[in-house]
């Protein structure tokens, strides 16, 4: 097992990440450390020139993840909590459902807990007070209940809708 980079090396070390579509991204060591998965991986490989392959993450999503991590690695010490919250809200404000879901999967894989939390909270807010049809739109899901099953489900869940 290779040695962990010491502090000076860590400051100079750049981590290379390769997306699904073979694009290479270079990030600061501290930025990569936000991801528990990368942290563990780098503990094994040490600082290396080889790009870490992320087979399931597209470049578009990876760019967003990196954007989040780069902001937050600085934010911890220098930026107020309120401003961080505003930045986060701006990030997700106009994000479409697909991107949100892909980000959740990526963040979960990379084990960036704050990002998973933020994405999930955003989705939960979008689910709030929606009708069943609207939810199907949001999740791009087809109704696979038979009419009888649908009626049964409706009866079972009436209680939660104040009926």
């Amino acid at each position: 097992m290779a040695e962990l980079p010491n502090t000076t090396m860590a400051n100079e070390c750049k981590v290379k990440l390769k997306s699904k579509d073979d694009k290479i991204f270079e990030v600061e060591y501290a930025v990569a450390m936000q991801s528990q998965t990368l942290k563990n991986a780098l503990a094994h490989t040490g600082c290396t020139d080889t790009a870490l392959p992320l087979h399931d993450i597209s470049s578009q999503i990876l760019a967003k993840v990196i954007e989040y991590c780069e902001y937050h690695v600085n934010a911890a010490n220098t930026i107020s909590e309120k401003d961080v919250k505003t930045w986060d809200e701006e990030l997700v404000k106009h994000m479409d459902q697909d991107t949100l879901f892909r980000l959740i999967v990526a963040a979960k894989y990379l084990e960036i807990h704050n990002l998973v939390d933020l994405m999930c909270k955003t989705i939960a807010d979008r689910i709030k007070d929606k009708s069943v049809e609207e939810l199907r739109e949001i999740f791009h899901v087809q109704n696979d209940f038979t009419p009888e099953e649908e009626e049964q489900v409706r009866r079972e869940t009436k209680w939660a809708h104040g009926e």
Partner: protein
Amino acid sequence: MDESPKKELAVRRNTSSHLHRKEETPSWHLGAPVDIFFRSSPCRIVVVNAQELDHPIIYVNLIFEQVTGYRADEVLGRNCRFLQYQGSFAKTRYPLVDIRILTEICRCLSEGFDFEGERLNFRKGGSPLMNRLYIKPICNDEGIITHFLGVQSFKEANFDLSPLRGLVWKKSSGAIHTHILGDMYSQKPLFVHRDCSFKKCCPLYKVSDEVLVVNILARLTPRDVTSLGSVCHRFYNLTKDESLWKLVCQNIWGQETFSILESVARRRRLWWGKIVRELTTLEAAAWRKLTVGGSVEPSCINFSVCAVGSKVVLFGGEGVNMQPVNDTFVLDLNEDCPEWTHINVNSAPPGRWGHTLSGLSDSRLVVFGGCGRNGLLNDAFVLDLDEPQPTWREVSCSTRPLPRSWHSSCILDGTKLIVSGGCTDSGALLSDTFLLDLTMEKPVWKEINVSWRPPSRLGHTLSVLGNHKILMYGGLATSGPLRLRSSDVYIMDLSEEETRWKYVTGSMLPGGVSTCNSAPPPRLDHAAVSLPGGRVVVFGGSIAGSRLETKVYILDPMEEKPTWRILYVQGRQPKYASGHSTCLVGGTRVVVLGGHHTEDWMLTELHELCLINLKGTD
């Protein structure tokens, strides 16, 4: 089925107009719509007992027998719902019976309104009848609903009743039987199978169930969770997960309520899905009678109780010769045979009655004020039940509120005692509010300064809503030179910078008539209980005219226009309930002790209002 009602009714069977015989009717004024029914066509009449569990039929007339094909002795003692089953062997309601109508009937019955509508019924042989139904609640002289009268005229129904395709579900070979929560009406499980309800390329496919449940669904309200469960099979399966409902409960009702419920759920092996549902709808609310061992001696009245975990603690009271007593008793409801135990405490506070006893966090309680041997008191004592030798310790403070009795109190955050109103030595009523923070090393009484105070009062209740709001209701309030029972509700948000009392609902005048049909009459000395979600349940107490009133009322102050509703509770209510002798145990049972109208001075017969069904999955 009880034999005697049948024999009685057999005599009346041949007189379908028996309701018109004046000498028999107490004070049943049926009103115009029902008269029209009688005049237009022969009517079926059904009377059910509103006070028995599941509303059993106690009377049907001859027309009912002739039209439906069911004989009186076949239907007496049963609930009317069998009329919705096609044929006498059906176990569930015919699917074309409109559920919305049934829901509306239930709502009207529980709120005490008349119901009028049409619904589908079946004869004994299975042929359909379209039933025009009029249901009226019948009250006794005390205003309590004792019966429901159903008058039905009918016409033949014409539609195709051939078996609906897919009605009887066949278990598919790859099906996974998911346990179903079972709705109120039908126990038939819904067989679901793990299917891909969306394309594999949809990114949602890759989000794991664990993330969905723990990170997304757990943040939602029950309403949104169930909406999501109606979207497709995959989500439906997720919403059947017990651990999801546990997380939902924690999220919507907070950690404190959750911890209290958790100990109950674990002990009785209750399903979390059911707990959330029943605490939301209160559909399983029922009165139960509880007999316990031991006794509270010397017997006393005007004692105060509070709940500590599963225990009911009693302190003080007015004993023989109107002397105040200072005994402490405990009743542990978790035991198989609960019995009153006298606690030998070190240094008991001076005896008193008309005081308040409230439960703090960590098995501690605090007593304040009351009427002692030499006049009214304003001292506070704290007891820790978990100590090996429990000791009452006085909270020493330099300045204290005025001595008082029949004030109200509540505990905010498990640590802050709030006291309000009451009656002073001179007989004057108070309208102040004080807060004592017991987390401080040297606690100091702080008056909560407000620009406007509700009229001074005694015998009112203070309930806590969430973490920082208190709700004041009722009491005997000052109104000019008079003192009248109040029905007013006020709320104060203690997290606001400028705290103030906000008027929520009521009559604006103590003792006045309220405008809403199902608002509780003004009262004092009642019981008020806070439910999870910020709702308040109120019952008992003393109302004008010394009527006994045991309807249970519920209010949601978070609504846009908060309105009182009558909560339908099964079972027999206690004849009287007073604020100082009720407490909420385990977040799920309101225990009612003693009462002015009982002979039970030993306190061995208790009543409890169970908010949820405590029979678990044993």
